[in-house]
């Protein structure tokens, strides 16, 4: 007989206006197991987790905690039980320090009841150390990169001695090294008898870490089975409802002629003497460990980071990129990895977000032509399979993956000649990725140049015609064709030989 589960989810349903997010979902989580939860974007994973976190109340159905019926009315209720959660969307306080964020509401106090700053920073340093990062506990969160913020989110959840730790796509912004550290921590938690619910769209990770896999589809529970009984293909079939072949389209060859983009000796605070060429029809990958300049290079080429030395040429003409506007005028599009801060106006609708960089195209005499706008937006939303009740839906109400699809949509329709993509498929399900790869491929095929930064090495290698590896702000290697393998990239990125 199975022991009493730590948590059992019983017939949970939840609807939002126009959306049935969860329908009659039931499954159980055992103490000491890592329970993966997978499903397409908008399948209802985050909604279910928010119910466990006390953020949403289910319309019907109930929860049992060690056999006892429970009601979670607020995040505080859920924390009291020992449930800790890493939300998919970051919930950090930009104006506060890392330590203040990590131990928010749990600040160590002196005997006088004042904040014990030393203990606060020390405990945070310890927690960060467990993940082998050297983020300064006293750094302001607003100064951190997305990956660093993700680590802070993780540490924040670990700071609670949780019986059940929920991780909603914790690895979407992490590189393999960091993922490795995270898995080390998960193993330790597991050994201690805690349970972990792990949500990810990276199925290899799911198979590496989890004991049990639950699949959700369109708000319904499809299956819960031991990971050992499943194959990758089987999980995909249950998630998407069909078999997937040929994830990556065939590699493209550069089309020749004047390079679209040419960079000579570009340097700034974080970059050293970068030289590169991007041809029409080419997908150029930028690889490297987090913090070694890929992101900064991408941003400099869109006029966000300053360029101190060096030249940038587009179509053989020297250009000065001081503002995004300058870059956009040259036909450059830029997709940021920080969709919440830099990608979306969350309170506005899907249509308004998608239209924003394309307003000139949708307007005549400075007036927005609503028909054109609606038609184009509607079409891309359909192609990208953005799951939304309509194009007027405020973006903040979409699931994480669908928000990412929205940001992608706004740039894909902007008819760019040079696309700079940073983590384009962050949080996007396997099925949709295929479609996105196809679209990017199509754009390149039609004569655009693509510059891509991704911490998902498989994706980078699968799509790129060429890969540049950065280390400490400089180009450490250029790998093309068969020379570009996971090993060769990691070797160049770490600078370790043998």
């Amino acid at each position, binding site marked *: 007989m199975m022991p009493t589960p730590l948590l059992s989810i019983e017939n949970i349903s939840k609807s939002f206006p126009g959306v049935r997010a969860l329908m009659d979902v039931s499954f159980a989580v055992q103490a000491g197991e890592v329970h993966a939860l997978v499903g397409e974007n908008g399948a209802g994973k985050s909604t279910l987790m928010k119910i466990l*976190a006390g*953020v949403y109340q289910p319309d019907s159905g109930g929860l049992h905690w060690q056999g006892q019926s429970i009601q979670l009315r*607020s*995040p*505080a209720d*859920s*924390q009291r039980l020992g449930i800790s959660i890493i*939300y998919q969307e*970051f*919930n*950090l*306080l*930009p*104006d*506060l*320090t890392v330590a*203040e964020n990590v131990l*928010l*509401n749990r*600040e160590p*106090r002196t005997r006088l*009841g*004042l*904040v014990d700053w030393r203990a606060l920073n020390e405990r945070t340093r310890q927690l960060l150390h467990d993940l*082998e*990062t*050297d*983020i*300064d506990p*006293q*750094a*302001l969160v607003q*100064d*951190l990169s997305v990956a*660093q913020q993700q680590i802070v989110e993780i540490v*924040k959840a670990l700071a609670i001695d949780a019986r059940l730790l929920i991780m909603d796509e914790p690895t979407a912004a992490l590189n393999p*090294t960091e993922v*490795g*550290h995270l898995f080390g921590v998960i193993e330790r938690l597991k050994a201690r008898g805690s349970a972990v619910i792990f949500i990810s769209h990276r199925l290899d990770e799911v198979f590496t870490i989890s004991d049990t896999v639950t699949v959700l589809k369109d708000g319904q529970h499809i299956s819960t089975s031991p990971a050992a009984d499943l194959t990758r293909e089987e999980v995909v079939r249950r998630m998407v409802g069909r078999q997937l072949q040929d994830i990556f389209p065939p590699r493209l060859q550069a089309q020749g002629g004047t390079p679209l983009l040419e960079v000579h000796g570009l340097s700034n605070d*974080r970059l050293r003497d970068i030289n590169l060429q991007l041809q029409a029809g080419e997908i150029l990958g930028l690889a490297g*460990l*987090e*913090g*070694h300049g890929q992101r900064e290079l991408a941003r400099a080429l869109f006029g966000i980071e300053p360029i101190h030395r060096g030249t940038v040429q587009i179509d053989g003409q020297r250009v000065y990129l001081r503002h995004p506007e300058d870059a956009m005028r040259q036909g450059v599009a830029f997709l940021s990895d920080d969709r919440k801060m830099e990608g979306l106006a969350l309170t506005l609708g899907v249509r308004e977000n998608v239209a924003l960089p394309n307003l000139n195209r949708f307007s005549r005499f400075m007036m927005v032509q609503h028909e054109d706008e609606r038609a184009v937006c509607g079409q891309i939303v359909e192609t990208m399979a953005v799951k939304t009740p309509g194009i007027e839906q405020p973006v903040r109400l979409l699931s994480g993956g669908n928000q990412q699809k929205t940001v992608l949509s706004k740039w894909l329709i902007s008819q760019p000649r040079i696309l700079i993509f940073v983590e384009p498929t962050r949080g996007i399900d396997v099925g949709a990725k295929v479609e996105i790869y196809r679209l990017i491929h199509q754009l390149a095929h039609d004569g655009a140049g693509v510059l891509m930064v991704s911490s998902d090495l498989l994706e980078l290698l699968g799509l790129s015609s060429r890969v540049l590896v950065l280390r400490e702000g400089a180009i450490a290697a250029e790998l093309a064709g068969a020379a570009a393998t996971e090993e060769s990239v990691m070797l160049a*990125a*770490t600078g*370790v030989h043998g």
Partner: protein
Amino acid sequence: MTSMPLTTPTASRTRWLKNWRDVLLIWTILLVLVIVASLASDRFLTPFNLERVTAQLAALALVAIGQTFVLLTAGIDLSVGSVVSLVGTLLVGIITDSPESWVLGTAVAVGVGALVGLVNGLAVTRLKVSPFMVTLATLSIVQGIALFVFERFKDVFEGSISRNFGEVFTGNLGPIPIPLFVIIIPVGIAALVLRQTPFGRHIYALGSNENATRLSGMATDRVKLQVYVISGLMAGLAGLYTSARTLSGNPLIGENLAFESITAVVLGGVSLMGGRGSILGTLAGVLIIGILSNMLNLLRVPSDYQYVLRGALLVLAVMLYARRGRSA
């Protein structure tokens, strides 16, 4: 596998600077203003004048401290001025020469302030009405009550407040004028609360990102309620001080305090969107406002030119500060 060190952009030293840069700048501007004022008028640095400026600013400082708490949470409190007025009109009927009446008066001042704050806080948290509208409404209501008390209970609430009571707040303690303590002590306490207590950190958290703070399991509504109560309470104390200073009550006396306090707090570096700023900044903001007006008066500038100069100097001060403080 070897892990490469992540290049973290901020070390603790720069973090310290970042935190204090705004405060340092605003105090530098204050210093410049003081130097200009003392060069421009030989009357400025006289003990009498400094004492007067201190006495003039104490009420504003008290209100601004409370306002800082509210603004840090991205709220706003427009009702503080009418609380000051109401407290004054009530105290006239209460405070006599007897020490018991002083205790009662203080209790009434604090009580009325806290009560109005509580109403504000409840309306903001329970009714989910924007703080601007809530406190605009209570501003009107409390002002109405002050006028009512003033009109209808002339016989009870008339005359003046005991001089001895006035002395307690406006006299000197040795060589030091008491209003200085009226400013310094609450500033010290508020700075301690904001910087060193969990409650203080929660205020910053709330202003920085309310949703995230709620998801961290914090009772955000309780913190909000508390800041409005604090603001009301500080306004009550400002009312007490004002009555002691004027030995009377007047239903309009606090009218401009809400706006002035918000100005002082914003001048001191608190963002209207919450989450950023400090009490030391607020104190500098209060002092700048006061010294600016004192300087213009000492320089015999007529009213119409005073408006123009005051506006220009205000903008100029923040301009220097904004350019350096924010362009990163």
